[in-house]
């Protein structure tokens, strides 16, 4: 990551609350009817939205990607419109945010952010989104069985019927699906769809958590069915960034490495950078697989990679990165300093093998 961009990103995060407060004040000044239109919690709601946009803007500044921010804005607008919030208000909020950033922050900081914000306010072409890609995976397979199972699995989850959900997925083993197929064509699209529904306010946090817990339970029950290749003598460490609480995607990746014959050290979610480096020194793996579940984790991912690269003992470790943010922004992984990137769990194993064989 570029050092100046990273510093500007930190500064934006460090004053995001003040900027959000002033943005909403200005927005309300221009639209005095806001309380009437959006109810008693309008101010807190809009500050929350503005704050989220500012944190995303800070990440886009860190990796110097207008596309990342534009995609986030587009995604937010879709979900907010589903909740009755108008496009005009969202755009005006963005314009107020721009005005406050320009007026209040030192030019050394705002000049990093304003071009990115401006790009999102124009009709910037948007690349493929996360959900589009994942759904396309299921559709391209052309398997009616897969589509049917995903739908039934989601229905069981939304009915809070864990037994039925598990049974629906496990029965596909008897119908010839492999574990990688189940991960990639059923569980992964289902998780993606649940996240999308939560984001649009169609399901609650509880529903989403129930879905994740069920998926993890299904994955545990699939383990006895693993048909592992012979051990290849290679070792992969799988980890997330500090603060990242998502782990299903990473768990899928390390499971598939295990099926491929790799030794696996799975560190799970929210691992401190220093502890990752210490483990790399101790275990000396062939590959570090880093999961980035949301764009809000990109700067921390970059920090982790920089820390690894700066440590003489582990600097040569091959580094594979993956996660939803990399689906929508081409070349982002290079900006972060990784050796390779994978967009699916099966691709992760292919790219991992390629990286260590060089």
């Amino acid at each position, binding site marked *: 990551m570029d050092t*100046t961009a990273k*510093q500007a990103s930190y*500064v934006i995060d460090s004053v995001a609350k003040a900027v959000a407060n002033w943005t909403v004040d200005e927005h309300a000044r221009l639209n005095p009817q806001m309380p009437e239109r959006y109810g008693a919690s309008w101010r807190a709601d809009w500050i929350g939205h503005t704050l989220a946009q500012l944190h995303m803007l800070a990440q886009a500044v860190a990796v110097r990607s207008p596309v990342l921010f534009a995609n986030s804005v587009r995604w937010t607008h879709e979900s907010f419109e589903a909740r009755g919030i108008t496009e005009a208000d969202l755009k005006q909020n963005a314009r107020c945010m721009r005005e406050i950033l320009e007026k209040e*922050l030192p030019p050394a900081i705002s000049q990093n952010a304003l071009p990115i914000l401006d790009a999102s306010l124009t009709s910037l072409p948007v690349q493929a989104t996360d959900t589009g890609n994942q759904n396309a995976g299921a559709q391209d397979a052309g398997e009616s069985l897969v589509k049917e199972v995903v739908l039934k699995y989601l229905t069981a989850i939304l009915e809070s019927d864990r037994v039925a959900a598990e049974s629906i997925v496990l029965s596909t083993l008897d119908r010839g699906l492999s574990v990688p197929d189940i991960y990639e064509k059923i569980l992964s699209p289902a998780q993606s769809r649940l996240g999308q529904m939560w984001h649009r306010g169609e399901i609650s946090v509880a529903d989403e958590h129930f879905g994740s817990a069920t998926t993890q339970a299904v994955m545990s029950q699939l383990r006895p069915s693993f048909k592992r290749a012979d051990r290849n003598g290679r070792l992969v460490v799988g980890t997330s960034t500090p603060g990242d609480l998502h782990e299903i995607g990473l768990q899928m990746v390390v499971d598939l490495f295990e099926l491929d014959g790799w030794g696996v050290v799975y560190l799970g979610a929210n691992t401190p950078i220093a502890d990752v480096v210490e483990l790399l020194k101790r275990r000396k793996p062939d590959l570090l697989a880093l999961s980035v579940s949301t764009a809000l984790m990109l700067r921390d991912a970059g920090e982790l990679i920089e820390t690894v690269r700066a440590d003489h003992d582990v600097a040569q470790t091959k580094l594979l990165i993956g996660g939803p943010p990399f689906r929508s922004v081409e070349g982002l992984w290079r900006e972060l300093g990784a050796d390779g990137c994978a967009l699916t769990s099966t691709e992760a194993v292919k790219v991992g093998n390629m990286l260590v064989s060089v």
Partner: protein
Amino acid sequence: MSDTLLQKVAAGETAAVAACVDAYGGLVWSLARRFLDHPSEAEDAVQEVFIEIWKNAARFDPTVASETTFVAMIARRRLIDRRRRDARRPVNESTPVDELSIPSPNTLDEIDIRDEAAHAASALGRLKPDQRRVLKLAVCQGWPHQLIADRLGMPLGTVKTHVRRGLIKLREELQADHHKPQLNESGKEAV
């Protein structure tokens, strides 16, 4: 002599803007916590203070005061403004920083006293005219109640009532936004 952090901020160095938060975050946070009751308010205030510090970085003169003093000065002014603003509605205009003078390190106590005096004068100004006139003579001039009654042509009982009710009202006004901390230069509580 190398430039100070604030001089680098004024010169447009991105790294200095970020370093400012690292260097003075503790000082500004400790001041904010002492001026404001709730951590969330303090957090908001700290962010506003840093924005103010960056905007005024060009005004910093190392020959007049230390950087710490300058930072503490801006922080305290903003925190006082915020406390007053939160205590009263409608919102008052904040004190323009351009109107502030930079203190030497040993004048912070004087600033405290001036703040107190200005605050008390402001509270006094919000009393009813008769209450205010009687209280000024009784408290500021030290006149006996009978003398005030004679000079203003008021019954003695009315003077006593104005003094009593005026003091109660004044105390309420001051308590609304007032629990004045005593700070040393580093922003730590003086023992």
